[in-house]
């Protein structure tokens, strides 16, 4: 890849409309600090991809490099096959919500949006549409200086949506949102991705995005430690673990044993912890055995532990056998 090519604005190649974000051997140095080192991963459309790592892992730098705000030391990030500055109408293809995105406090929210609607080249009617999407339709004429942090996050999202983009890039969007706001954002992002669009969302907390994302890219100290499906992120024991509460634990355990699932432990509250069977298998077995299920959860504690281990300061990328490019190899 070599040193980054100059930002030649005349070099406008056509983008492919794929909705794919490709990070290729990205490195970024800020003075003596290696913020990102030889990072590669791909973000596919049609799903929500989580971009995880502890604070200072290089998430923001990577996202800003993708958006053409930070110029890579080496490598490149392409969106639809081209660099951000080659997209021509970037905001109609990529919407971005960045944590330090600013507002002029004296401007009304509607004015803020109109300014960028003009720059993007979309009609002013789009302003009311995006205000409605984010639930600020009644607050458009208030000055941004009087907005709460959560409202500013919504206004940031509204700005990102102005160009009706096919790709959304969000840096820690949950910060400042109340629990309803987080739930709302989760549903919004899932619905957005369900229409075949691309969502890349960063967070330093696995729990915050665990219910939203399908795929994760985990980085630590500027390097990738995991890329793949979230439910395949696990430690050495790669067997699924399910917690089940049923009308008859004994009968369910017997039925499961009959299917070859023998690693079953009873819990103090009368339930079972089944290792080596998915929730589907446990549910089907219970149905066949005539046992009613009151509660069935796939164990997530393992994910959290594995995430913390990978993002620990002492963690050495590439050492653990559990680290694979796309789940277990």
């Amino acid at each position, binding site marked *: 890849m070599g040193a980054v090519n100059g930002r030649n604005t005349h070099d406008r190649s056509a*983008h*492919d409309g794929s909705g794919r974000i490709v990070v290729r051997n990205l490195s970024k140095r800020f003075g003596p600090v290696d913020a990102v080192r030889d990072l590669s991963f791909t973000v596919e459309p049609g799903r929500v991809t989580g971009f995880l790592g502890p604070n200072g892992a290089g998430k923001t730098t990577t996202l800003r490099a993708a958006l053409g705000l930070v110029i890579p030391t080496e490598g490149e990030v392409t969106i639809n096959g081209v660099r951000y500055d080659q997209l*021509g109408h*970037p905001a109609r293809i990529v919407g971005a919500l960045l944590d330090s995105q600013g507002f002029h406090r004296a401007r009304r929210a509607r004015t803020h949006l*109109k300014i960028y609607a*003009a*720059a993007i080249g979309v009609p002013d009617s789009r302003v009311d549409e995006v205000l409605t999407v984010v639930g600020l339709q009644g607050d458009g004429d208030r000055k941004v200086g009087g907005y709460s942090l959560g409202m500013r996050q919504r206004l940031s999202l509204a700005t990102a949506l102005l160009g009706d983009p096919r790709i959304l890039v969000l840096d820690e969007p949950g910060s400042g949102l109340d629990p309803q706001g987080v739930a709302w954002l989760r549903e919004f992002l*899932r619905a957005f991705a369900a229409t075949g669009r691309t969502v890349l969302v960063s967070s330093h907390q696995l729990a915050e995005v665990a219910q939203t994302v399908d795929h994760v890219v985990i980085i630590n100290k500027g390097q990738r430690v995991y890329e793949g499906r979230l439910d395949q992120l696990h430690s050495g024991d790669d067997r699924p673990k399910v917690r089940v509460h049923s009308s008859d634990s004994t009968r369910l355990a017997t039925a499961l044993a009959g299917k070859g699932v023998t690693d079953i432990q009873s819990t103090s509250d009368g339930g079972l912890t089944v290792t080596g069977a998915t929730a589907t298998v446990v549910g089907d077995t219970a149905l066949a055995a005539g046992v009613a299920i009151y509660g069935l959860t796939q164990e997530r504690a393992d994910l959290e532990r594995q995430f913390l281990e990978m993002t620990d300061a002492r963690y050495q990328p590439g050492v653990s056998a559990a680290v694979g490019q796309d789940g277990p190899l």
Partner: protein
Amino acid sequence: MTTPQHPVNPLAPVSGYQPPGLNHPDPNRSDPGRGEAGSSQPELVAQMVALLRSELRKTYSTAAWWALLIPAALLSLLVNLATAQGNGLAFTPGLGMALALSSFSSKLAVIYGVVCASSEFRHRTITTSFLTAPGRVQLILAKAVVAALVGAVYGAVSAIAGILGAMFAGGLSGGVPENLLAVCGVAVVTFALWGALGVGVATLMSSQLAAIVAVLVYLLLVEQVVSGLVSISGLGQIESYMPGGAANTALTELASEGTLAGTLLGAGTTPWWLALLIFAGYSVLAVLAGAAVAQRRDVT
């Protein structure tokens, strides 16, 4: 937000629910620019027009443009009032106007240029501005053009205020001399160039306070000292070749052409149009340098 409004029920199942505003479920919809071999000429023009509209909206949605216009007009009014009362001394109405506009009101035009560009860095709106522009250079150019427009308005309003000031003092009892109108016309151009120059300097420095202080210290102190020292050393008169001096010369030379004051002041070393061209060069250079620096700067 008085009542939290959630247009989307967070508990609603994802499937079958279409959030408002997502109008293109078809993954094959045509995105702008997709498959195009390059941006055509009309396309580039349309992009520039879009950025200019955006910059104009930024301009009139904050108070900076009129807050700085008021002192510009007042200064011109007062200085013209004073010089008109001093008529009969060396001051013709044209020269009084040239002094008022070049030494006083023009500083507010350049400060406006600095403020309008650096407020984007100060309020961190520059991130969104870069993200929504086809390129950083286009954005800086659009900003410079709009600052030049505002600068031209500063020039015109300051000139009118100055004429009013001179009239109050009875300095224009013999009608408005042609020479005065010429000074006003050229002032509109220099003020426009000042506005653009301010955008260039602010983009180079990106800190609002530092840029304002640097511009004022340079214009009011550094340039005088340097050209004074060079003059004392017998190396010649370089004042009209420096940015501030060139802009001043364009107005004062024009005002003093064929006047007694002009002859007395030793005018004629640099013709007004040459000084104007030199100043235009500095203005363009500042904008290009700002754009070049903006192009390579990391926005974090």
